[in-house]
């Protein structure tokens, strides 16, 4: 029997000055060469567990600790962080703050230089690590000039250069567009298979990872509540992960679960699109497609443009042309997503819509106001904007005042303000924290608060910039339910996002930006039919759409096109 490379036994940990433990009696063994996927709701202790593997906990962060962690037989508490650094390497969530040098080469050589390796060896490792992540040609580049995906790869290379036995990655896809995320997962798998490096991957976005992992570990509230092979775990407890923990599971697994609930039995249980297509195909004699149709588009609203811009262009003072000839019409009551690679102009476009920037060419109107003329103040009374990082928008000392702020600025009578604040806090599930400081809230609460501050203004249009950042599926769904309620009352919703699942489930139309140009505007289903737009927008198709496509092509099942699991499964009848 091989010895585990990582052995965690009875680990309980309290951060300095905290009453409640973050980790409660955690036991975990990881074997050399394994690819382990670790999932759990935000705040469940995943990142803390990661930090305990390379000794940062407790050697650097202190706190109270019980139990022990051994790496390759070495007790972390009897070791040092620098000794452990060549055994366990961690790639942190935000590539921005873990890179501390100006040049790529220096960044990757940073760790090896700290270890006082010979200059020739440092150079060899820099070249090797950069080649491993496929970015050797970047070595002389300035880090702040790189794209998000490139930064992520440099961060991975800088950890690989330490030649660790275990590579831990903490939500590497969190800040990436879908295609960059998919590429990162490919890279991680290659590293695992080709170098034999043990991989522990912490991830929310599991669609394209589940099928590659050897083992799935699930955490909740500081405890490990599941530890098994992904295949058996998804079949037996996929519902628990989805419904109780409120986490995402791959769409293929969701299809598998729902079809098994209808009486089919899959062996093997599918973990990704191709497997699901295979599984369904092999049961084609028992499946009848209820109607050959597709998910129906929502009934058309009355067609009244609320946003209408023509040949809109914007060039920053430094000469960067961020927006080129964008013509776009959004009708009242629509739910629209703006998609595209980071830096493609999504945020610039919305900054023009709310008046933060004035168009340098072209123009248009938002809620009847001329973009070139109207002030931010006039526009923001009609169109709300929820920024990506909630902290940026907070200006008051309590949650209550924060929500009341906008109405006070509009000089509402105080009784009415009180009434509306109470109501809004209730809708957003924030009644319990009304007296807290906004910055003292959890990530999910902060996000809901930032939505509340805009929702209370009852604007005609509401723009949400990357609402999924740092959110579990559950809390995201809560926000979207509130948004859909507002939408039914007539509010137009614009989502700037990378999240294709969100788009598929909620949006009537999508706009795709690429290098400042609008390259697509139409229903999501039409976007899925156009592979070149998908590629240019750095997007990936929803897994269930690809699944249906595969079924149509490789089996005789005449399924239509589907964007959501609900619609797909709803159209399937089992005999």
């Amino acid at each position, binding site marked *: 029997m091989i010895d585990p490379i990582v052995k965690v036994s009875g680990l309980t940990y309290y951060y300095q000055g905290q009453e409640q433990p973050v980790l409660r009696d955690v036991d975990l063994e990881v074997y050399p060469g394994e690819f382990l996927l670790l999932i759990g709701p935000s705040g469940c202790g995943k990142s803390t567990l990661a930090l305990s593997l390379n000794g940062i906990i407790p050697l650097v962060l202190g706190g109270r600790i019980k139990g022990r962690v051994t790496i390759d037989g070495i007790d972390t508490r009897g070791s040092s*962080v620098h000794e452990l650094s060549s055994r366990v*390497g961690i790639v942190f969530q935000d590539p921005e703050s873990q890179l*501390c*040098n*100006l040049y790529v080469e220096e960044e990757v050589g940073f760790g090896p230089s700290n270890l006082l390796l010979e200059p020739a060896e440092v150079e060899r490792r820099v070249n090797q690590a950069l080649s491993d992540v496929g970015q050797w040609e970047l070595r002389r580049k300035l880090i702040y000039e790189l794209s998000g995906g490139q930064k992520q790869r440099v961060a991975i290379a800088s950890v690989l250069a330490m030649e660790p036995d275990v590579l831990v990655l903490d939500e590497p896809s969190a800040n990436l567009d879908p295609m960059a995320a998919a590429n990162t997962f490919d890279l991680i798998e290659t590293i695992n298979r080709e170098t034999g490096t043990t991989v522990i991957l912490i991830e929310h976005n599991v669609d394209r990872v589940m099928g590659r992992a050897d083992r799935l570990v699930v955490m909740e509230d500081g405890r490990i509540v599941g530890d098994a092979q992904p295949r058996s775990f998804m079949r037996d407890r996929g519902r628990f992960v989805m419904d109780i923990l409120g986490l995402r599971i791959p769409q293929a697994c969701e299809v598998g679960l729902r079809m098994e609930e209808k009486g089919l039995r899959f062996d093997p249980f599918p973990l990704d699109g191709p497997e699901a297509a295979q599984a369904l195909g092999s049961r084609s004699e028992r499946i009848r497609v209820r109607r050959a149709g597709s998910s129906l588009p929502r009934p058309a609203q009355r067609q009244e443009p609320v946003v209408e811009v023509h040949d809109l262009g914007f060039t920053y003072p430094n000469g960067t042309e961020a927006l080129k000839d964008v013509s776009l019409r959004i009708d009242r009551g629509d739910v629209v997503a703006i998609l595209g690679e980071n830096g493609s102009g999504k945020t610039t476009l919305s900054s023009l819509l709310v008046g933060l920037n004035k168009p340098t060419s072209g123009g248009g109107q938002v809620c009847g106001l001329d973009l070139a003329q109207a002030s931010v103040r006039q526009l923001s009374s009609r169109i709300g904007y929820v920024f990506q*990082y909630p*902290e940026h928008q907070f200006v008051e000392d309590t949650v209550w005042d924060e929500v009341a702020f906008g109405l006070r600025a509009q000089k509402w009578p105080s009784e009415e303000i009180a009434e509306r604040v109470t109501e809004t806090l209730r809708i957003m599930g924030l009644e319990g924290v009304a007296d807290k400081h906004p910055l003292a809230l959890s990530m999910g609460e902060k996000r809901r608060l930032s939505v509340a501050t805009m929702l209370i203004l009852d604007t005609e249009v509401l723009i949400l910039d990357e609402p999924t950042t740092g959110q579990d599926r559950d809390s995201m769904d809560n926000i979207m339910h509130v948004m859909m309620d507002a939408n039914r009352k007539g509010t137009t919703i614009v989502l700037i996002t990378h999240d294709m699942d969100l788009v598929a489930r909620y949006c009537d139309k999508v706009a795709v930006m690429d290098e400042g140009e609008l390259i697509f505007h139409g229903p999501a289903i039409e976007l899925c039919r156009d592979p070149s737009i998908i590629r240019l927008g750095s997007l990936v198709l929803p897994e269930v759409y690809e699944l249906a496509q595969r079924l149509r092509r490789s089996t005789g099942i005449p399924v239509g096109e589907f964007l959501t699991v609900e619609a797909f499964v709803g159209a399937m009848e089992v005999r």
Partner: protein
Amino acid sequence: MARFGYVEGTSFFHRMDPTWKLLWNLVVVGMVILSFDLVYALGLFLYVLALTLAVAQIPLRRYARSITVFLGMGLFVALWKSLYSAWAGYEAVHVWYSWGPINVTREGVYDGAATLARVIAIASVSLLFTLTTDPSRLVDSLIQVAGLPYRIGYVAYAALRFIPLYDSEVRTIKQAHQIRGVGEEGRGVVTKLKLYRSLLVPLLVSGIRRAQATSIAMDSRAFGAYGRRTVVRKAEVSHDAKAFVLAHVPAAAAAFYYFVMLGNGVQIVR
């Protein structure tokens, strides 16, 4: 940031060891502050300008973009000085123009011009430094040549990387506040203070969070493991560089003797 940032090149100044270049900077700045003489300051400015354009080969347009900021600042000081010195108690005041309480005098204008020349002379030396020095080499040199402990040198270096991040974050927060209508309640001092506070608090919070994340990431890659780190790029001080810097020392000494010891420039209060 980019306005003053490093311009790539291979000139004598680009190749010069940054610590020695810094030393040269101090010598020349020292020379400038010794005297209030207009021609002297102007002469030094022209000397540094010639070095920047001809030797360091910084493109004129790029240079103009950087120096204009100081020019603006200097002009403001100079204007203020030339008006102010009208009633500063000159013995022989040659009034050129008078309008109400404002007197434009020959002495005042001369004084203003001299101040302007001093400001841009000092600015030009510092600019020659920043425009020709790669920050990464500066840190290497400060650690290897000047003997700065690498832990300190690296912290400064990491901070440098965060400047563009902060820059864009400040812009984002300001916009986020604008959307919420912050700053429209009035222009009172209390409102202003509150405005700054609501800008600073999130900035500090994210700054602290980012600093912590960075320090954990650095520790995780064995930062501070030993008293030394591997020197990948050796900082080398060429003879030419040393000779160039040392050649300025006698000139500075002479200037010191003439202006300070003989009392022709700044006065040392005893």
